[in-house]
Structure formats: C-alpha cells, structure tokens
C-alpha cells in the first residue's frame, strides 16, 4: 500500500524529538510502527510528520533497582522484555509479552507503542494497570508521573498528549500476578483479557477489551464468589462483533477474572 505523503525525522535525543513533535501540529512519534504503519495504510491515521524514536538510546532498556522496581524504556521491544533477566523480577511482564502476536511483531513492537496506541484489545494496558505501574511523561513543560490507572483515557487516547512523549514505565516489585485471555487464534488479538495482582493484599483486577479503557475492580478478597460478584457488579457493557457477542464477552470477563486471580494466588 502506498502511504500518504509524510515527512520523516530521526532525532538523536529526547529534547530534539520533543522540539519536532511540538513544532508540527500533525506530528506523531513513530516507535516500532507495528500499529502506526498499518493504520497509516488504512488512512485511519494520517500524520504529516513522523518523528522516529529509534535512535534515542535513553528510551530503550530495562533496569532493575535494588528495591525490585523494574523500569522499562518506552522504546523497549516485547522481545527485549521476554529475553531480559531484569524483567524477570516481575515474571508476568515477560509471560504476557510472549503472548503478543508473533516473532516479527515482538521484535519490532514496543511497550510504549502498545500503551500509547491504547487499542482496547491490547495486552499491556490492563496488565500495567493491575500491577500498579507508573508512567513517566515528558513534555516541553517538564516531566510528570501518572499512575497507569489514570494514563488510559479513551480509545487511542492517553495522558501523553500532543507534543509529549511517554519515556518510561516503572513497575513496582511483586510476583503475585495473573493474566488470562481468550484470543482470536493462539496469541492473536484478545476477545477479552484480564490481569490480576494480589501483591497489595486485596486483589486488583483490570479487564481489557470490554470498554474504552481497562475496567479496574478491587474485590475485598480473592475468594471465587467475591470475584464473581465484583465482575457482575461492574455492569460491563462490552461491544458485540463477529468474534463474540456482548453477552459472551461478559461471560468471558467473569471466567477470565477467576483464572487470572487463581494464577496470581498460586504465586503469592
């Protein structure tokens, strides 16, 4: 497919990238391109300028702090996470990244791209919400931190606004996590996914694919009936499509919530 004409820059620093993003109204950051290039083919996005972040080394990499916090640069690929010894400090990260699409997409697709595109069927928005991640956003006005729960604002919309960049994601220490999904084909697009974490005591659940942003639930306990009641009480209103009716998605949300919690409980 021939793309619409577009200008391209590949800055070497975050400051230069911010300047470029700020000086063109139709500028967009290009991370791994595994979503953006395709939506440009479909003309669902038509940026005037692409600011390729590939040369900005400080946006890439995974660090493990002495307190167990895992900090992931926005340009880190899924494959980087799967292969990273540091990321294994929070094992669910690599386990979920391994379920995303296929080898080629995992080699190019980035964590930052996944969350900033905020497709409601993506894996990482619910996961990062459940594990209590913190997103660092840099703009012309400086740096700010946003909890993952407040980062996802709507379909394709996040707290990283025009002219801003998500630079890194910090995941606190923990092991009691679970993730369950029903995808279209193995490792395909999720029909419903649920991430759960029991590390803060009471469970935190984040249900994906059923609303514009992950639906967060904090049942009082990890007991099966309590989790069921919490999911039913959320009055989910998911979309219907060729893959699943709204009713079936509601059913999946409940079943997958139980599976995610059970997996998490087995690890605490």
């Amino acid at each position, binding site marked *: *497919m*021939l*793309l*619409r*004409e*577009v*200008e*391209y*820059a*590949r*800055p*070497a620093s975050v400051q*230069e990238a911010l300047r*470029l993003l700020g000086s*063109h109204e139709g*500028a967009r950051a*290009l991370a791994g*391109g*595994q979503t953006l*290039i*395709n939506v440009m*083919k479909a003309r669902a996005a038509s940026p005037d*300028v*692409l*600011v*390729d972040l*590939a040369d900005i080394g400080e946006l890439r990499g995974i660090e493990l702090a002495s307190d167990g916090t895992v900090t992931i640069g926005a340009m880190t690929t899924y494959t980087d996470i799967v292969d990273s010894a540091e990321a294994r400090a929070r094992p669910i990260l690599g386990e979920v990244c391994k379920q995303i*699409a*296929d*080898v*080629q*997409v995992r*080699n*190019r697709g980035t964590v930052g791209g996944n969350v900033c595109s905020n497709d409601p069927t993506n894996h990482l928005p619910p996961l990062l919400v459940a594990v209590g991640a913190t997103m660092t956003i840099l703009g012309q006005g400086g740096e700010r931190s946003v909890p993952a729960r407040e980062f996802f604002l709507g379909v394709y919309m996040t707290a990283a606004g025009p002219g801003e960049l998500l630079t890194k994601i910090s995941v606190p220490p923990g092991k009691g996590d679970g993730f369950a999904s029903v995808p279209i084909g*193995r*490792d395909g697009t999720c029909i419903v996914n649920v991430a759960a974490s029991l590390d803060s005591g009471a469970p935190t659940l984040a249900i994906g694919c059923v609303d514009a942003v992950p639906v967060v639930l904090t049942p009082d306990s990890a007991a099966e009936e309590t989790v069921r009641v919490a999911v039913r009480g959320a009055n989910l209103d998911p979309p219907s499509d060729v893959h699943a009716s709204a009713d079936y998605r509601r059913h999946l949300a409940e079943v997958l919530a139980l599976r995610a919690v059970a997996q998490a409980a087995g690890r605490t």
Partner: protein
Amino acid sequence: MEAVSSRTITVEVNGVQYEREVEARRLLIHFIRDDLNLTGSHIGCDTGNCGACSVLIDGVLVKSCMMLAVQADGAKIETVEGLASDGELNGLQQAFSDHHALQCGYCTPGMLMSATALLRENASPSEEEIRKGIQGNICRCTGYVNIVEAIKAAAQ
C-alpha cells in the same frame, strides 16, 4: 535536524551495498522489490498478518510491510535471495524441497526467513518451538505439516 519527505539511505542487502533516495512514505517491502528489484520477498496481505514479506534486519526477523525504507537506513538486510550461494540451495531450502514444504509457494520466502531466524537462535528446536517460530507466517494452502517437517530436518 528537520523533517524531510525523502532522504538518501544506505543499506547492505545480502552483502551488496545500495545507496538510494527514497520517499519517507515508501514501505521497506516496496523498496526491496521495486527499487532493488529483489522480488523474492512477497507482499501477501499488506496488513502485517501473513509474513510473506519477512526479512532479517541486522539479524532481526521483521515484516517489511510494517517498516519504512528510511527506518532501515544503515542496516544490513537479508532476503530470501541471500540464502542460496552459487546456484546451490542451502540446507534449509533443500529440506523444503525434499519435504514438499510448499504448495503454491507464495508464503515460502517468508517461511524460509522465519526458519532461518529460528535456527540461528535455536539449532535444535522442538516441534512446539518451530510452530511458535513460524507463527507470524501464514500458509494459505495450509501446508504447515510439511513446513514443520522440513525445518525439523534442516535442524538435524
């Protein structure tokens, strides 16, 4: 640095250096096929699903329909044309031939590149690992069994 609508890129493809001016909007697969006339890599779906356009960029397996040519500036690219040498199929290609691992053949270039990447990383993959390794490549003839057999044979 300013944004530009075209730029001159240098790439090494199968050991040969190329310098070309390309439009920023040009997909890498079009650059490889139409500018360099290396038509072994195929365009199947053009949506990132089928993997027929798979190539190796600096040793990393990617789908070249989901990358711009300008993003590959400075890279070493390997395509299916680089597998055979002096007209002789390499071991993997010979295994595909021996095991009838192609029907219409359209997916074959991508399958070969995915298998190449897999075998470099894992010299003796299990069947499960082979199937995971070619997960991004769709054979619309559904001839996966023989493809898996061929990769298994090439690994031995």
